[in-house]
């Protein structure tokens, strides 16, 4: 099996979709000849032509709003928004339109579409490229939000997102695009939406994370194990909306302690919902307050501060230890 980066795995998934389903179109800003600013759509226009893979005018609301129309009229649009913060420009079309057409039309029209977008910090682009705004979308009912942490899941989740009967926001962590390689089957397979994955079993504490934070959590878990014999379970949430509540509860019921990690600011971030789920299902299992390792309630940091402000392994380790101190 070929070892692919996440960018390659997604490129491959897109190619497979374009190949096997003529209803699939791939479009967005610079996705054509340029192959996307991260080269995720590289070679696709050349291979599938300008009718299947094309550049749009620079207008996010137009990209999402017209994808809604395409989906209603029988296509399977896969739209790219160049960076997640620019998806706020199309927030209204996503939240009140794409996510609501099923309800609004009494189920007569549905919007099976995917919005792919790079997100996350650590890459040091100019401002407003890296802000983790995913919680805003996760609160929009009717929309699914997915954030893979590795190449294998990225491909499988993307296929599942295309199969899904509803709109899916597909978040690709920029730092993961090329940072690790994994064996990825060439054929089409799906990784189910709505299901978290225990990527490291453990007994003492559960660490919930998604996207690039999963690697951080794994590193922290390995280190606390080595340093202090702490057995940390790492759960990759994978789908941020709707959350896999059963998986969250099962893990905390086992370990009695939890840490939630995300790059977004703390107030109103996804960790709050994870804690609320734990409160509802597993409060009596809980031996210590759930720890949140997040960015502070500030703007996304300027490049010179990324390393200091964003969550890091040391902070995850400290949080793990705090849950065990009490």
């Amino acid at each position, binding site marked *: 099996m070929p070892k692919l980066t996440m960018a390659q795995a997604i490129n491959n998934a897109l190619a497979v979709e374009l190949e096997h389903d003529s209803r699939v179109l791939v479009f967005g800003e610079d996705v054509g000849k340029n192959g996307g600013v991260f080269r995720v759509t590289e070679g696709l226009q050349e291979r599938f032509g300008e009718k299947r893979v094309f550049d749009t005018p620079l207008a996010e609301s137009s990209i999402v709003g017209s994808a809604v*129309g395409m989906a*209603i*009229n029988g296509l399977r*649009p896969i739209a790219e928004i160049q960076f997640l913060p620019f998806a706020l420009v199309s927030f*209204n079309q996503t939240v009140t339109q794409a996510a609501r057409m099923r309800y609004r*039309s009494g189920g007569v029209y*549905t919007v099976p579409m995917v919005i792919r977008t790079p997100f996350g910090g650590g890459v040091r682009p100019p401002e407003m490229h890296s802000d983790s705004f995913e919680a805003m979308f996760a609160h929009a009912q009717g929309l699914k939000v997915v954030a893979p942490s590795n190449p294998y899941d990225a491909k499988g989740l993307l296929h599942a997102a295309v199969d899904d009967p509803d709109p899916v926001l597909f978040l690709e962590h920029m730092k993961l695009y090329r940072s690790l390689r994994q064996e990825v089957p060439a054929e089409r397979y799906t990784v189910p939406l*709505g299901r978290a994955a225990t990527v490291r079993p453990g007994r003492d504490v559960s660490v919930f994370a998604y996207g690039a934070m999963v690697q951080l959590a794994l590193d922290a878990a390995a280190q606390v194990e080595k340093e202090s014999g702490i057995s940390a379970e790492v759960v990759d949430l994978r789908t941020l909306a709707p959350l896999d509540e059963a998986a969250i509860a099962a893990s905390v019921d086992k370990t009695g302690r939890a840490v939630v990690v995300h790059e977004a600011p703390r107030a109103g971030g996804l960790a709050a919902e994870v804690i609320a789920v734990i409160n509802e299902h597993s409060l009596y299992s809980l031996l210590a307050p759930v720890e949140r390792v997040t960015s502070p309630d500030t703007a996304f940091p300027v490049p010179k501060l990324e390393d200091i402000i964003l969550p890091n392994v040391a902070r995850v380790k400290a949080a793990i230890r705090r849950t065990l101190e009490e």
Partner: protein
Amino acid sequence: MSLIADDTLYQVLSPTGEVVGSVPAIAPAGHLNLYRWMVFGRVFSDRMTALQRQGRMGTFAEVKGQEAACVGLAARLTEEDWLMGSYRESLAYMVKGVPLAAQLKHWGGYIPDNYPFEARCLPFQIVLATQVLHAVGIAHAIKYKGEPHVAVVGIGDGATSEGDFNEALNAAAVFELPVIFVVQNNGWAISVPRHAQTRVDSFVRRAAGFAVPGLRVDGNDILAMIGAMDTALDRARSGGGPTLIEAETYRMGAHTTADDPTRYRPPEDLELWGRRDPIIRYRKFLMDRQLLTDLEDEQLQDDVTAEFEAAVAEFEALPPQDVAQHFDLILGNPPPQLARQKAQILNEQ
């Protein structure tokens, strides 16, 4: 008539019903069908407003005065064409194939689950101008599939100020899509008059700013509307791309049943536009051509009223809105937590 980018107003019938342009080819039955829809629209608008006042209907947006524009924008579409608009296009939707029963359920506060797919009308839009981008996407799919169909979208003059409308014009031109933008310029956006909305002389000029050809049409002249739509539909079906039609009309009633237009609208305007009433004008034409008699006209009024009342009776006999449906329509694959939430609320009932 050719596609223009100036302010010449395209008319077939003068406000007093004189023929001043070339009458599009319409069979006598076709004429009567158009007229029937317009009369129906007036009855629908007046009766819905009255029902709302009686507490028997939800908030309703009047069509009164805009019957020619509404009927005209929909009348020449095939079943396979698509139509979307705002709350103001309710009548156009019925012309396109959405049953009155569906409109009643929608305005009446139920989940609008009885728009038939085959009508190809999206639920009327509340978040203004968003539907214009949906039309662009639908037209994109039509073109991609190589179909001869067209996406038609209605929008008010006020909503043209939204970014989405302007983005849609741009995308339609760039991708040369079979889409027709019909601006129902009724002079007002709730209380905001047209001149406070934009300073451009006509929306045809706006469209020209995106290289979309346009036609300014007397929207109270059903025959001009039909002629304009025929031109734009031909263009779209033959791969010619998008067209904007500005239908100059007037909202004779309130914005919605929640609005009081006496707060902001000069009464003279109402008088002026009363003299341009689209129904009176067309009736005169039909009578001049011996296509309609007074007696037939009265009969028609009675018929459409009876039709409306029968539908209302059916509407009022509907069972209560199914609660389970509310939970089943948010996602095709609802998660377990939603099933729990549903069970909880259903248990309470």
